[in-house]
């Protein structure tokens, strides 16, 4: 799984295959990798999958809601860490996914139709991300203003959804519900399995999706596409003068990140059977940025770990006091940015990796 070969002797002809980067699950653009990484990967996901057997089902179900945030966070890590575009409004696509799924699932009814609703909701989210991203990138909007524009997008969405309390705000049988949100959304159902918040199928589905997303994004990051994105992040003009339409790359990654946010939103709606405007509000919009910044935006693995840990922490704190949770999360962000500007989780993981290497 090593990343490349160099040519042994000078003067030998550089054949294309031997010189260039080998791509795959491991490579130069993913921070961690190798035998140890994948052993731990299998171990961690194996331990999580068997947790309901040796641990508690209740904890596993709780854990589902933390895992649901991971695709959303990984999408932002790809966008921000690998393409240099900071979106402050990824939750807009979380909300679009969740609401679209809600409307479709309520109208189309139970059973296999919910799968169709989920797939269509993903499609709609991608469409929304593509439309918004098109104006951002093809309009050649300056990079520094993108966080503001994406934040405005999500706040507008929140304001709009918040005023949909009246009975006239319905799509078919689905009542948008204003600030109370949309309720009675059916969970995704396949045959005898209902992917809801009260049973294990959703836990396994989300766990599998997280593993797949992590592996898939690692492959994308190490691919030629990922390298070009990195080049765009480093030096846009340089990348363009190597023959790349940088806007197309940025838009593609923006759509992938939007899709992943939408996936989280759909899973969330299936988990809790509801979705509300606060999901796309100001506080909600800061969380993905916080998870990714504190974890380390250039490391997908760190973001996956950090997102689960921070979600669990804020959930635990919220049991005592909602305000306390926000204060502590804010403090962690501040401390994290000062103590480990590259991210706390990645710094920690690197330290552990270095220690284990030193011991050998």
């Amino acid at each position, binding site marked *: 799984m090593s990343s*490349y*070969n*160099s*040519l*042994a*002797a*000078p*003067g*030998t*002809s*550089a*054949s*294309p295959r031997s*010189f*260039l*980067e080998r*791509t795959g699950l491991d490579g*130069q653009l993913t921070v961690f990798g190798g035998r140890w990484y994948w052993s731990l990967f299998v171990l961690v996901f194996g331990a999580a999958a068997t947790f309901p057997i040796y641990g508690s089902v209740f904890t596993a179900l709780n854990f589902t809601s933390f895992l649901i945030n991971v695709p959303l966070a990984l999408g932002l890590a790809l966008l921000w860490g690998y393409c240099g575009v900071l979106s402050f409004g990824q939750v807009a696509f979380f909300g679009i996914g969740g609401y679209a799924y809600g409307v479709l699932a309520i109208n189309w009814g139970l059973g296999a139709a919910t799968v169709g609703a989920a797939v269509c909701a993903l499609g709609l989210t991608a469409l929304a991300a593509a439309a918004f991203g098109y104006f951002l990138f093809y309009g050649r909007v300056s990079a520094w203003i993108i966080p503001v524009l994406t934040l405005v997008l999500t706040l507008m969405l929140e304001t709009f959804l918040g005023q949909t309390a009246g009975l006239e705000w319905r799509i078919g049988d689905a009542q948008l519900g204003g600030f109370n949100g949309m309720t009675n959304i059916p969970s995704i159902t396949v045959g005898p399995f209902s992917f809801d918040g009260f049973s294990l199928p959703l836990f396994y589905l989300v766990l599998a999706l997280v593993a797949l997303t992590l592996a898939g994004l690692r492959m994308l990051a190490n*691919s*030629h596409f990922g*390298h*070009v994105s*990195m*080049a765009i992040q*480093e*030096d846009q*003009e*340089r*990348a*363009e*003068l*190597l*023959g*790349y*339409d*940088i806007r197309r790359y940025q838009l593609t990654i923006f759509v992938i990140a939007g899709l992943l946010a939408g996936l989280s939103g759909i899973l969330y709606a299936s988990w809790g059977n509801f979705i509300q405007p606060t999901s796309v509000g100001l506080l909600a919009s800061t969380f993905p940025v916080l998870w990714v910044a504190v974890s380390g935006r250039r490391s997908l693995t760190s973001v996956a770990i950090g997102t689960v840990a921070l979600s669990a922490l804020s959930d635990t704190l919220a049991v005592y006091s909602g305000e306390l949770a926000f204060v502590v999360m804010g403090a962690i962000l501040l401390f994290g940015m000062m103590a480990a500007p590259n991210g706390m989780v990645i710094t920690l993981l690197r330290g552990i990796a270095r220690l284990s290497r030193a011991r050998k």
Partner: protein
Amino acid sequence: MSLLELKAVRRAFGGIVAADGIDFSLAAGERRCLIGPNGAGKSTFFKLIMGLIKPDSGSIHLDGSDISRDEPFRRVQRGVSMKYQTTRIFPTLTVAQNMFIASPGGKLSEVAAWGLDRLELARNAARPAGELSYGQQHWLEMCMALGNAPRVVLMDEPTAGMTPQESQRTAQFIKELGDRGIAAIVIEHDMGFVRGLEAPTTVLHQGRVFRHGSIAEIERDPDIQRIYLGDAHG
């Protein structure tokens, strides 16, 4: 027919006319030196060809088709590429990764592979590009400019800061590019290097083509001595 042709290209920045009706023509595989005092419009000339700035009037043609309105990346895809004056490689990435990025679809072009071999960069594949010597960084960028298997390469002062040996090797390299059918336009201040390239030379002055001829003719021309001295002492 000429490979690259500029017809009456004009571009002004406010009151400063950086390109004042430039007519220029380059044949396939030809190499050409571009000289001129500071502010003559040499870098603007390159930026116009690459599409980093658009002409106010006039047109630019590649292989007979008008590329004046094409985006920079399209021009690169059509076979024009450029090496920056100060290297713009990706210093934290390895030499192999830099070449990977510079190769469309991740496939190393034959001419880029030849260049890496010729400039002995292949053995440094796994090293971060920022750790290479200054000259090697320039060479890496030249190889990156070959990634798209170009028809013509623009090089902005390729030997700035190089040792005499490295300069000599660079001149040799550019000549061999011509043998492989790749045209080159080279901006250079170092007259020794220009002589070594043995190429027709175009002199730019105040955004205009001032003279065109062999380097021997150019060096004998009293008008050219005057614009250079005027620039240096005025």
